[in-house]
């Protein structure tokens, strides 16, 4: 079986030793101890495992790690720059766009992919872009607000 021996994660080249057919999520979480990406369903239906592959959002639970070799992988742990939260992360806090927050990593990674493609998304574009991410606590309204605040389209969220 083909092996994967190195991965580019969050700007660093990391050494691994895994079969190429293992899920990217499993390698990130168990081998690299980057546990910000979550397991939620294992079938690409909930978005909790979302990471960026060369800037494009994908479901790491149904992606074989072999597909990620030679590409830039970005996880939730890689979004902060110089220890500073991104505007999107700040906006999630200010909008209180989380309850249990288990979905939050996937939401923020998906939203950052959305914003890099569509810097000022309409409400409809946010809904379309984020529809693959599930929040069982039901904070969708606040997540939409957070994304719109981060994209400079809405002011601070009221209450």
């Amino acid at each position, binding site marked *: 079986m083909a092996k994967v021996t190195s991965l580019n994660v969050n700007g660093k080249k990391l050494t691994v030793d895994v079969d190429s057919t293992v899920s990217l999520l499993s390698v990130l979480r168990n081998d690299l101890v980057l546990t*910000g990406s*979550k*397991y939620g369903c294992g079938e690409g239906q909930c978005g909790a495992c979302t990471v960026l592959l060369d800037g494009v959002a994908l479901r790491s639970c149904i992606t074989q790690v072999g597909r990620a070799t030679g590409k830039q992988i970005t996880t939730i742990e890689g979004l902060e720059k110089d220890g500073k939260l991104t505007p999107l*992360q700040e906006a999630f*806090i200010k909008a*209180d766009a989380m309850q249990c*927050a288990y979905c939050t990593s996937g939401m923020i990674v998906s939203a950052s992919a959305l914003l890099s493609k569509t810097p000022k998304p309409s409400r409809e574009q946010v809904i379309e872009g984020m529809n693959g991410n599930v929040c069982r*606590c039901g904070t969708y309204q606040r997540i939409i607000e957070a994304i719109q605040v981060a994209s400079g389209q809405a002011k601070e969220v009221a*209450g």
Partner: protein
Amino acid sequence: MIDDRELIEAIEPERYELFEAPQYNFAFDRRDFIKAFGLGIVFIVPVTRAIAQQRGESGRGGSQSLPNDIGAWIHIDENGDVNAFTGKVEVGQNTRTTLTQSVADELHVPIGLVHLVMGDTDLVPFDVGTFGSRSTPTMAPQLRKAAAAAREMLIAIAAEQLQVAPNDLRIVDARFVNHDKSKTLTLAEVAKGRKLVKVIPDDIAITQPKDWTVAGTSVTKVDASKFVTGKHEYTTDLKRQGMLYGKVVRPATFNAKLVSSVTKDAEAIPSVKVIVDGDFIGVVAPDQQTATKAANAIATDWKSPGQPSNSQLFDLLRKPAANTRGGGGTRPQGSIAEGLAAADKKLEQTYTVAYIAHAPLEPRAAVAEWNGDKLTVWTGTQRPFGVRGELAEAFHISEDKVRVIVPDTGSGYGGKHTGECAVEAARLAKAAGKPVKLVWTREEEFTWAYFRPAGVIDVRSGVKNDGTITAWEFHNYNSGPAGIQIKYDIPNTDIRFHPSDSPLRQGSYRGLAATANHFARESFIDELAHAVNIDPLEFRLKNTKDERLRAVLNAAANKFGWGKSKPAANHGFGIACGFEKGSYITTCAEIAIEPATNKEDDTNKRVRIVRVAEAFECGAVVNPLQLKNQIEGAITMAMGGALFESIQFDNGKILNPKFSAYRVPRFSDLPQIEVVLVDRKDLASAGAGETPIVGLAPAVANSIFNATGQRLRSLPLVPRGLNTNAKS
């Protein structure tokens, strides 16, 4: 004050999962109260005698190893940090934030100085569990008492240290300051070098809501930065030295007994260990892939009895249960026959609700570690002490040998009251001699957890042409008695809950049966209003004098613009109200009937919820932001159970155990949500995690009737869309 144990046993018998027998029977064979806190000052709040006595009674989850007469404690450490200890856990209801606010408010310190230690059975006082919306009404006052007493006692100590009169000192931003600010001390300077334990009198006064400064304000999740960066470690994220990964081999159906198993192929895989103990079969391996591969390599033969399917469900539920715990109802008032005789219109209807799944995004998970005969388990549960009891029972050890630690958890909604995953992980770890992590798959979570009870509800009533309801007969089969009582002024009532033998494992779900009972009641109230041609809002107001209910009815109606305009073509308006767990609610909904978006359902129309206005009153509001968040979330979650969520089962199998087959609300389902908080500073705060969920289903059913003339009486209302040709 109602004690939690009393609440469970007397009022909420539908918490079925708390009365279950242990799942596995393994063949296996006090610590001091004040642990080494280090230096500083500890303030202890005893609970009332009545509660302490009840805690001593037997029952699952009862803990005997900690003093059972202590409700909360606060430790001021040598750094001046305030550590508050509670047995409650954080599962997304953001009680970590609101309890922190209450402590900071009472102690007059900034919120950042307060650290809440939650859900660690070796460190925190006994607590029956985080459910029933009890954290705010029962835990917040206990922590406030500790903080209030701490404030006064600390001032006395500081006054002595500064040689001033105690009444000359105040605490301002965690500093003791005298009148002209000539003398100050920090919390750290007061706590330094001390080892004091102070017991607080139970009758100490706490700050009333009108004088709150930190509480009552909108504070975002206290440790939100850990969550937006992925740094928070849920149970599923934990790693221990030498940890192995586990996998349990599941039977093909429920209620199966293991006949035989062939494990040699699994055992042949290097580094794999197979554990067979009674009906339990599991494996451990150095990584998850190998564990899964080994589990799949085990051949098993199970003996299963024939079991019912969805199609027989509601007939089954009408049969009386063998065990009638919690049955009966309140004493009937007046006479139903006389009430019906006095009515101009008599109506009778049956409503049903399906089993639904909590589907918490973090599935059940546990990391178990044995050190000699001492067991430590990290797991996401709403009942750390209950799970400790389950573990002690499963392994025939005393509870003081078991420590359960609950990291802030990926939601529960009433679905994580039990410790099945913790028990399994501990069994695997015992055999492996190493720490073991076990994370249930989504399919396991959908199959082997418990469901919100299904139910059948019969209602019979009569109404006069002037809108006066004359009789109210209400029978709930199986789903439960929560929210079954009424605030309508009806002279003749007979309201009962009838337990049934459920074909599926069932238990608590956010709001319990209040959703089913509100769905049936408020749909039927709507039917009565239409029978006598009275506006549904006016009809409700006419039949209740309860001021708190009237206040939320009017508040929601105003926000929604009820009666101000007519719905557009193919749109409908609906209203529903209610009360439960000390809170009052009214929900108004607007729905639209639209062309189907899904090919499979092209004969049926889509029901889209366009707009929801909900008014909610739960006494004094502790944190408007978090309360709004809970209400919005409850409305969103409620849409699933109202419109499309339903567990399908046949012959001991769940047929839709994954998100691709069990639809949950998504961004595209989101309506415009408007929340009105009715803040009653003159009333004690009630919990608010549950009751905001109960109004949506009937409001939507009533708006579908408003739009189409079709009366839908089963939840979910439109799992395959709306057949507009159907007759109601």
